[in-house]
């Protein structure tokens, strides 16, 4: 098994004919993702790479039974695109778009929560369940099917962690980029709950960064409920307060959201926190060995 994306996923790409959307649609199809429809308002009735294009998400759901959406539309229209997907009955929406105004996201967040929709992102690389499907912009080839779940606020730093795992022959069940914005549809705690319940995930890698308190919130949950080994890293240990480090959400404000606070909370929860991102893979390897040997003696 895996979380969010599997063989039953039927994907609609919102913004399929745009430059980002078209490039990554090809990549997703190549990886084996079931892309059943695309949406570009005004281009309904055409085709892209053999995928039928519709004017609305509703039509994509009606004609192609799409059950998952990925959004590549520009920032000014992306919040509306999420709402359209929710309204069409899609239950998993993955928003790649970066730069959506926070005020727009407040309303979107409220909507997805009230409709019980899982929103991943915005400003994220997407979700991949190696060997089953990839929804987003991550390079598929660095991944390897297996039993470790990865959840992260960053893109390339996640690829780094995944590469380390794959090089050590540790495969991944699902890798989820939750996004670098201050308002995101799913936080660490939401994804960690899913990994905790997934019988095919044995360990969790959690990659956070400065800003907010989502890591602390997840640490509380892990302390109480998670028995699987968790390895954590927080990016931005050297970042100064009051300065935004690229991601809209990566800022220490009012003395809150520092890496040291987060690392302390995570350590307290029993998470194996590494101070160097180069040690994520090897630390998980050791943690899994201990975990499996304990299981064997039981």
């Amino acid at each position, binding site marked *: 098994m895996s979380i969010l994306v599997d063989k039953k996923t039927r994907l609609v790409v919102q913004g399929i004919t745009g430059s980002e959307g078209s490039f990554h649609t090809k990549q997703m199809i190549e990886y084996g993702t079931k892309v059943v429809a695309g949406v570009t308002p005004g281009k309904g009735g055409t085709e892209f790479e053999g995928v039928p294009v519709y004017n609305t998400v509703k039509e994509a759901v009606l004609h192609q039974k799409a059950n998952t959406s990925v959004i590549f539309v520009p920032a000014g229209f992306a919040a509306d695109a999420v709402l359209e997907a929710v309204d069409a009955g899609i239950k998993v929406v993955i928003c790649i778009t970066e730069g959506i105004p*926070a005020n727009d996201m407040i309303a979107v967040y409220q909507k997805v929560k009230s409709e019980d929709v899982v929103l991943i992102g915005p400003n994220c690389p997407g979700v991949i369940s190696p060997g089953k499907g990839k929804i987003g912009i991550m390079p598929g080839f660095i991944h390897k099917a297996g039993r470790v779940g990865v959840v992260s606020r960053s893109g*390339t730093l996640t690829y*780094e962690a995944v590469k380390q795992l794959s090089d050590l022959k540790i495969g991944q069940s699902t890798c989820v980029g939750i996004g670098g914005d201050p308002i995101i549809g799913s936080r660490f705690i939401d994804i960690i709950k899913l990994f905790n319940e997934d019988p095919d995930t044995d360990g969790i890698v959690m990659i956070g960064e400065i800003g907010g308190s989502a890591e602390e919130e997840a640490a509380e949950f892990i302390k109480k409920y998670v028995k699987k080994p968790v390895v954590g890293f927080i990016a931005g240990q050297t970042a100064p307060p009051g300065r935004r480090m*690229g991601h809209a959400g990566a800022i220490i404000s009012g003395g809150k959201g520092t890496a040291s606070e987060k690392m302390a909370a995570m350590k307290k929860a029993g998470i194996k926190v590494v101070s160097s*991102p180069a*040690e994520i893979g090897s630390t998980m390897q050791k943690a899994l060995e201990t975990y499996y040997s304990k299981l064997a003696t039981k």
Partner: protein
Amino acid sequence: MKIHEYQGKEILRKFNVPVPKGNVAFTPEEAVRVAKEELGGELWVVKAQIHAGGRGKGGGVKVAKSLHEVYEYAKTILGMNLVTHQTGPEGKIVKRLLIEQGVNIDRELYIGITLDRGVSRNVIMASTEGGMEIEKVAEETPEKIIKEWIDPSTGFGAYQARNIAFALGLSGAQHKNAVSFLLKLYDVYVKTDASLVEINPLVITKEGEVIALDAKFNFDDNALYRHSDIMTYRDFDEEDPLEVEASRYSLNYVKLDGNVGCMVNGAGLAMGTMDIIKLAGGEPANFLDVGGGANKDTVSNGFKIILSDPKVRAILINIFGGIVRCDRVAEGVILAAKEIDVKIPIVVRLEGTNAKEAGIMLKESGLNFEVAKSLKDAAEKVTKVLSIN
């Protein structure tokens, strides 16, 4: 984006939020003209305009009792290097003043509006401890901060504004004026796509008026595209010139104080690379995210920006080529390094598609590259070049 206090007050005026009469001045003569012709009266406040709080304590705010004093204070404050708890020890040069009429203060309160990330909603915070550093109040006496969260589907309710006004101990005309002030202020916050509005102090006058004596605004950079009027408020003098330069090349750069420059694709990996530099015994000189298309142009612009900081003794390039091919990136790095003629050691770590070919190209280029095989190796190579130089 941040703006000056006088600009914030211009915005407040547009939304009919009460502020003292005042105007900006760039010279002592202008300051006197504003005081005499635009404001009148017998009491004025001369306020330094920089993008940082704590100006009063640093000597940047003075009360003048005559036009002569307005001139003298303006002369002293303009051009001074103002150091506050928010500017850092290097301070900021004052280039603009706000000349304002004096206000008959009865009480000083605090109002702030911002996004509460924990609940993904806006929150209005109020406190009777106006004029103080709110971070201190939050830490030492958190019970003195009143909070109301805004439901996005219903907006800021009048009952919530009343809750705040009652909790602040206001009654009669003061209460009524405070409720109206709060409702209008929230309207400004939403309509301008602000990420922070802080009125500290909010003053209650002896006459019962409720006036914003200070105005601090931050705006959501992601929403600026729909506020061309606010974009004209940007003051480049308040920003680091290198960061302004970098933004022209669409590079995401933040200047720091260290000795090892870095160039990375992706914000998270860039922060992680800074951490690696620290662990390797160096100090990161910058944050630099070159984004998805690391090519010759972005890399050579990155080199230029990093090298204009004289403290930089080594550079670490860390690119994870997922969809971009590493051999293309290597080609860009080699061309850029030749063009710029970089004299300090460069540690390059390229990972992903065609990383091996890229490594060979870098080694055979005849340039001063230390090619690293992994992130761990990159950290060790940084330590090595720092110990040699």
